[in-house]
């Protein structure tokens, strides 16, 4: 289960709304206690995809390294990635799956007409063949 604290959630939703109609992306930093992940910090990261960003996002590895360093400096962990689906539901698409990594929770925010609609979290496998839903609280 992954739960997102209000301050982090606000950063994530604000980033998704401010980048609409493009996709946004970012990192989630927090703590892990057994099966419960708690997101305490949402980090907005620039979408590095060089084409049409309405339908794609890309995280620079360098930006992920920075996020990981920030997590370590705060005594926390990098536990997830988030991105938005503008005018589309929060499902884990084939493109998401083929460009995923099994180490993190992937939270997808659905944004319709510039407003937050709903969100889901997914846990992709190492073979990039499936990504079951994970319980998400926000």
């Amino acid at each position, binding site marked *: 289960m992954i739960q997102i604290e209000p301050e982090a959630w606000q950063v994530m939703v604000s980033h998704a709304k401010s980048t609409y109609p493009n*996709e946004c992306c970012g990192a989630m930093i927090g703590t*892990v206690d057994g099966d419960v992940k708690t997101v305490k910090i949402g980090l907005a990261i620039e979408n590095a*995809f060089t084409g049409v960003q309405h*339908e*794609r*996002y*890309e*995280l620079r*590895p*360098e930006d*992920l*390294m920075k996020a*990981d360093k920030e*997590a*370590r400096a705060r005594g926390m*962990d*990098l*536990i997830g*990635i988030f*991105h938005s*689906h503008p005018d*589309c539901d929060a499902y884990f*698409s084939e*493109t*998401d799956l083929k*460009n*995923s*990594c*099994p*180490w*993190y929770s*992937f939270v997808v925010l659905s944004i319709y007409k510039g407003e937050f609609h709903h969100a889901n979290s997914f846990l992709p496998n*190492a073979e*990039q063949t499936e990504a079951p839903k994970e319980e998400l609280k926000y």
Partner: protein
Amino acid sequence: MAKILIPTPLRQYVDKKDSVDVTGATVGEALNALTTAHPDLKKNLYNDEGKLRSFVNIYLNDEDIRYMKKESTPLADSDTISIVPSIAGGL
């Protein structure tokens, strides 16, 4: 000894440590030392053909080893290796 930073989800395979000190003349030797000492980590980083998984990037300090000498990149004791995933997506 060089240091390898371990991403949070992989620490379960390295006795919950956030970094592991390794010896090796190259990045490849260091990674081999890491996965030899912690065999359960290997399948997370390498596919069945023994190649780094497509989503795994290896950085030596702040440089992607793909733009250096890949796994033959020389390693110094003061170096830090990071394991960084490639992540993208879309509709």
